[in-house]
């Protein structure tokens, strides 16, 4: 069962990845692109979790954790830039 579900899941997450990337490239405004990047990060977390289950190796967990953290930091910095220019003031 898992063997059929996982490829489907991969495909769904891959499409999610694609959509986010589409928004990132197309924009039109900077917030759209940042949102695209942020979602791309979250999609990546999903991808990594799937990979972990697929390969039966828990070693990808830290990467997922870090992507979640770093994605957030990046989004905060980008938004702050749009709002204030000077991100650390």
């Amino acid at each position, binding site marked *: 069962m*898992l063997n059929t579900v996982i490829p489907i*899941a991969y495909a769904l997450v891959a499409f999610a990845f694609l959509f986010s990337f589409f928004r990132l490239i197309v924009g039109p405004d900077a917030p759209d692109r940042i949102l695209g990047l942020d979602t791309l990060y*979250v999609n990546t*977390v999903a991808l990594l979790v*799937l990979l972990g289950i697929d390969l039966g190796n828990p070693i990808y967990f830290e990467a997922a954790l870090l992507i979640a953290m770093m994605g957030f930091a990046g*989004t905060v910095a980008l938004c702050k830039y749009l709002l204030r220019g000077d991100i650390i003031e």
Partner: protein
Amino acid sequence: MLDILLSILILTGSIFTFIGSLGLARLRDFYTRLHGPTKATTLGVGCLLIASAIHFSVDGDLSLHEVLVTLFLFMTAPVSAHLLAKAALHIQVKSLATTPVQEADTPTDPA
């Protein structure tokens, strides 16, 4: 049995992930697009993480550290969304709804 539970979780998770991003691609203004990733995607990844936790817990040792990522995502996704919306309001991106008065341009934190 466990296989079925896992499969459901994985499928649900990936479908929500998919839908969240689909909204991002499909909806027509920034503010509506913001909703998909904030909710659906977050939940989707949450489901996948729970699936992972179950998957690795049955192999032997209890594996609950995925909870942490879930927690983290649930704490940060709204903040990201808030900041994005604030930025969008600031640079006045196109909106389907009437945007509120720019009262935020007065500092909220006098410090």
